[in-house]
């Protein structure tokens, strides 16, 4: 319906795959992307080195979850780093990438030229979102892999004790680490969609990034106020730490499902808002 009064729409358009390929190759060639992935990779590295150098033996239950286990089993480094990274570091990198999607092009004055290519605005939006989503997966995987490597380098590696007290083998624990990375990535997709929408509102990428970090922080603050427990299940960040249920035995996938539903809701709402905003926007730069 959007194209009924647009003669260009009648011409068969390319799928946008080449556009996606360009988008990804531009993103993964930027120094900024590497700097952010590097910063994410440093979280487990700092954590492991601090534990290794410290002479203080942590009592069970002291410090962030699993930190006291790290000295016995290096495979816990990734899990602890994920818990440390979720509240601020990961959302921060997501904010930079998703806030830059449209506002960055607009700010640089390249959005006009991008839209002269025979791809619709909706398709461009999809490509931008796919690019941001790819970065999300890359960031969590980087954190997990860097955690596993530094853990294996500095500490003994062996069967992992789950929260339930059951023990799983090293291969299964690596599988669970991948599942945790997938869970956290999905958790952050909603924020990417919010970021995409905010990015269509402004030509100043830094403003969009700050707004996205604010959204993520406000959501987390609302989530700890018991008076607002009614809205908690609907909050963007409510299930962020829910990956802990993947470290129980038997593995509980129901939180995985709940998380996917909430994130899909955010993607649908803010994706359609971004579409409406972007397709009706006057592109002046």
């Amino acid at each position, binding site marked *: *319906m*959007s194209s009924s*009064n647009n003669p260009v729409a009648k011409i068969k358009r390319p799928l946008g795959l080449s556009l996606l390929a360009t988008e990804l190759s531009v993103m993964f060639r930027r120094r900024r992307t590497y700097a952010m992935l590097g910063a994410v990779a440093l979280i487990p590295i700092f954590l492991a080195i601090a534990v290794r150098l410290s002479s203080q033996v942590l009592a*069970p*239950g002291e410090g962030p*979850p699993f930190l*006291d*286990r790290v000295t*016995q089993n290096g495979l816990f480094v990734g899990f602890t780093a994920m*818990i440390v990274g979720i509240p601020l570091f990961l959302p921060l990198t997501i904010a930079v990438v998703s806030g830059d999607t449209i506002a960055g092009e607009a700010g640089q004055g390249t959005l006009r030229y991008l839209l002269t290519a025979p791809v619709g605005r909706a398709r461009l939006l999809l490509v931008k979102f796919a690019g941001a989503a790819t970065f999300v997966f890359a960031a969590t995987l980087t954190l997990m892999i860097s955690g596993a490597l530094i853990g294996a380098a500095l500490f003994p590696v*062996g*069967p992992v*004790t789950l*929260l*339930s*007290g*059951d*023990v799983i083998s090293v291969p299964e624990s690596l599988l669970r680490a991948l599942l945790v990375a997938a869970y956290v990535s999905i958790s952050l997709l909603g924020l990417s969609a919010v970021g995409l929408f905010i990015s269509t509102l402004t030509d100043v990428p830094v403003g969009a990034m700050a707004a996205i970090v604010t959204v993520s922080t406000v959501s987390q603050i609302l989530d700890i106020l*018991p008076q607002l*427990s009614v809205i908690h299940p*609907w909050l963007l960040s409510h299930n962020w*730490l829910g990956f*802990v*249920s993947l470290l*129980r*035995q*038997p593995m*509980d996938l*129901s939180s995985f499902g709940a998380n996917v539903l909430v994130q899909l*809701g955010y993607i*649908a*709402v803010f*994706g*359609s*808002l971004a*579409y*409406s*905003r972007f*397709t*009706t926007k006057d592109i002046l730069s």
Partner: protein
Amino acid sequence: MSGISKKWLPGLIVPVAIVLASITVPLQANAVVDLPDKTAQEVLLMVNQDPNIAFSATITKSADLGFPALNLSTGMTDSMAKSAQELAPKGMEDFVPQAANSAQLAAALELVSGTQNARVYVDGPKKLRLQILDRMSERDFVVNDNKVWFYDAGTATVTYAELPKMPANLANKKAEARAIIEQYLQLASIDISTPAKAANLLLSNLDASTKVSVGSDAKVAGRTVYQLILEPRAAVSLVDSITIAIDSETGLPLDLTVKAKGQKAPAFELGFTSIDFAKPNAAIFDYATPPGATVTTVPMPTQADLAKAEAELNKAKIEYAADPAKMQAMIKAQLKAAGVDFGALNLNDLKSGELPYVTGRDWSTVIDVPASLVPAGILDNDTFSNLTKKVAGGRIISTSLFNVLITDDGHIFAGAVTIEALQASASK
């Protein structure tokens, strides 16, 4: 202009559709349920009696007792609270939360406040696993035949016990006990020879204090349930109603809800949120101590110990019958050797008002703890004064389900009754 407004349609429709869907989908799950009508007695009779029932389920407990906000942190250990108090500026020590250090206090607070989730696996009477899902941790309670484990992931500790095997002549003993009980029941002319008669007796005894009825059919954890509703008749009771939801198919009680007078949200609810009646995987009950955990083994008497104790008891019984005075002196001497000295204490010498005393019955029961049994100094404690508020005749801890009155002369009155009822029993 029309093109622009059309393009805003998805931005309007999708959010509205998602909000509508998120409201209507849960409502559909609670669609009207209509089961064949049953009386309270019939519902009682269908309660599960099969000990071999097997299921996996998730449980949620939520409590909303309107408990006063406490400056206590269950996440804090004693040493953490102490070092925080030492670090705090002078005069600010009181602002450091006190650790809910005693395990009992922490457990009690946990029970009366907040929401908690758990998973439970049951396979017959001898296999059970309960997992309390803490936010970043877990506590596991596993029973497998005669082996019992308790694992706390927060402290990486295991408490293990091996229960003594049941004596071979248990069946005989059970029959013996049953015969004795039936004798007594006959003497009291109570007939519970059939479940129906027992249910009837229970209901008729309850009737004086409680109105028992069957509520509307409902759904709990996706299963259709009958709701048995108990309503106290006592006007002073704080309890409005207790609802027990019983699965229409298996008879398993699935939910317990306690409502307080004058409060819309349930004061306490414990119920299944999902249940699967398939036999749980046997591996769930095979527990092995995880590496690195501290294990405490609770000593349990062996079967030989039990037999020896029984023989000694029988011997003591015979000797006691032969010469009570001599045996009493011997027991006192043994207790004294063990560091317990009752001296000249004789229960008959106790003045009234020195033991906890119960007044009222059923729902209007009030416990009166005399001042001599109340730990000294509790009234001057800061935590205590934060918890309580001043009323005529003393200070009160008030929640939606129970009240505790500490009178000015140090007595403690407690009960699931109104403040006025407590004050009335205090003034007696």
